[in-house]
C-alpha cells in the first residue's frame, strides 16, 4: 500500500493509465543494477531513483575527479576525491528516500560479476571500456539476465537491449573486443557533455519499460544517436548463429576477463 506521500510523489506515474498504481508498485518492487557511476551511470541512477525503482545497485571503483563534472551529473564539486558510488548514493537517497541503494566500490571482473548482478531483475552497462562491456554481456547471457548496453564516443552514442533467449547479444554484433588501444575509449577520447545524458536516459527508459512490462524494448535493434546530425537510427540486429556465446556452437561457456581489451587508462586504475 502506498503512503499519502508516495501517492503524491508518484502521482504523474499513477495518473498514466498504462502505469497506474500497479505499475508504480512494480517499479518499487523492481531491482536494477547499474555498472558504472560515471557519464551514463549518473543520469540512469538519478532518474531510476526519482521514478521509485525500489532497489538500485551501483558499482564503480573510481573516485570523483574534476574532469568528470562536465557530464557526470550525479557528482558535484564538493564530491571530488569521494568514491563515485557513495557520491551517487547520496544524491539518489536525497532525491527519494523510498529507494534502497546498494553500492559496490569495486571494478567488476570475472570473479565477482555473477554475485553482483545476481539479485537484480535488469542490468545496465554504464562502463567505459571494452573489457567491462564484454564481461557484462557474457555474464548476462550466461545468467539469462536482461541488460542494456550503452556506448558513447565523441558525438555519437549507441544502445541495445538484450533479452535472453530472444534477441541478439553484444557479441552477435561484435564477436571479440578490439585489441588494446585500437579504439579510443575513456580518457583518450573526448565526449560532448550531454551525450552520455541522452544515451543514459534511453537506457533508464528501457529499464523502466522492462519492469513495467510495457512497450517495445530495444531488443534486436541497435539505436545509434548522432548528436551533430541530430539523428536517431535503429538498425535491425538479428541473433548471429556464429555468435561465440549465444550462437549454435558457443566457444565461450564460462566467464573470463578480456585482458587484451583493457586500455592503458583502465590499467592505471587497477
Amino acid at each position, binding site marked *: 500500500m502506498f503512503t499519502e506521500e508516495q501517492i503524491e510523489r508518484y502521482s504523474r506515474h499513477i495518473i498514466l493509465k498504462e502505469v497506474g498504481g500497479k505499475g508504480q508498485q512494480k517499479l518499487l518492487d523492481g531491482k536494477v543494477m547499474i555498472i558504472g557511476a560515471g*557519464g*551514463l551511470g549518473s543520469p540512469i541512477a538519478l532518474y531510476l531513483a526519482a521514478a521509485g525503482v525500489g532497489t538500485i545497485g551501483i558499482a564503480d571503483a573510481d573516485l570523483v575527479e574534476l574532469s568528470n563534472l562536465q557530464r557526470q551529473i550525479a557528482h558535484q564539486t564538493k564530491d571530488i576525491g569521494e568514491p563515485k558510488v557513495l557520491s551517487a548514493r547520496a544524491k539518489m537517497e536525497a532525491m527519494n528516500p523510498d529507494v534502497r541503494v546498494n553500492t559496490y566500490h569495486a571494478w567488476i571482473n570475472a570473479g565477482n560479476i555473477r554475485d553482483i548482478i545476481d539479485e537484480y531483475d535488469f542490468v545496465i552497462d554504464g*562502463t567505459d571500456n571494452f573489457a567491462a562491456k564484454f564481461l557484462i554481456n557474457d555474464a548476462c547471457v550466461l545468467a539469462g539476465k536482461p541488460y542494456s548496453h550503452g556506448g558513447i*564516443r565523441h558525438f555519437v552514442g549507441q544502445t541495445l537491449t538484450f533479452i535472453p533467449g530472444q534477441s541478439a547479444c553484444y557479441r552477435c554484433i561484435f564477436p571479440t573486443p*578490439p585489441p588494446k588501444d585500437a579504439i579510443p575509449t575513456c580518457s583518450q577520447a573526448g565526449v560532448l557533455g550531454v551525450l552520455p545524458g541522452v544515451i543514459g536516459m534511453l537506457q533508464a527508459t528501457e529499464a523502466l519499460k522492462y519492469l513495467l512490462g510495457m512497450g517495445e524494448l530495444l531488443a534486436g535493434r*541497435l539505436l545509434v544517436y548522432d548528436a551533430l546530425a541530430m539523428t536517431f*537510427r535503429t*538498425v535491425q540486429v538479428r541473433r548471429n548463429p*556464429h555468435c561465440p556465446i549465444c550462437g549454435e556452437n558457443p566457444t565461450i561457456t564460462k566467464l573470463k576477463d578480456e585482458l587484451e581489451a583493457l586500455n592503458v587508462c583502465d590499467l592505471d586504475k587497477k
Partner: protein
Amino acid sequence: MNLKVNGKPAAIDGKDTLNITKLLAELKVETPEYVTVELNGEVLERENFENTLLKDGDEVEFLYFMGGGS
C-alpha cells in the same frame, strides 16, 4: 551501382567487382579492421569480406565499437 549505406542512398562504381573490402576503402571507413558490416540485415563474417560481392539494391550497415561511458 545503387546501394543503401547506413540508411542513405549511395551510388558506387564497380558492378560485379565491388566487394566489402573495396567498399570500406571506397567510403574511407574509419578503422575498417574493426567495423562490423551487416549486409541486408545479416552480420558478415570478416573472412567473407573479400568474397562477398555487392549488387544493386543491397543495404549495408557499418556498426562501430563505442567503448566510452564515463
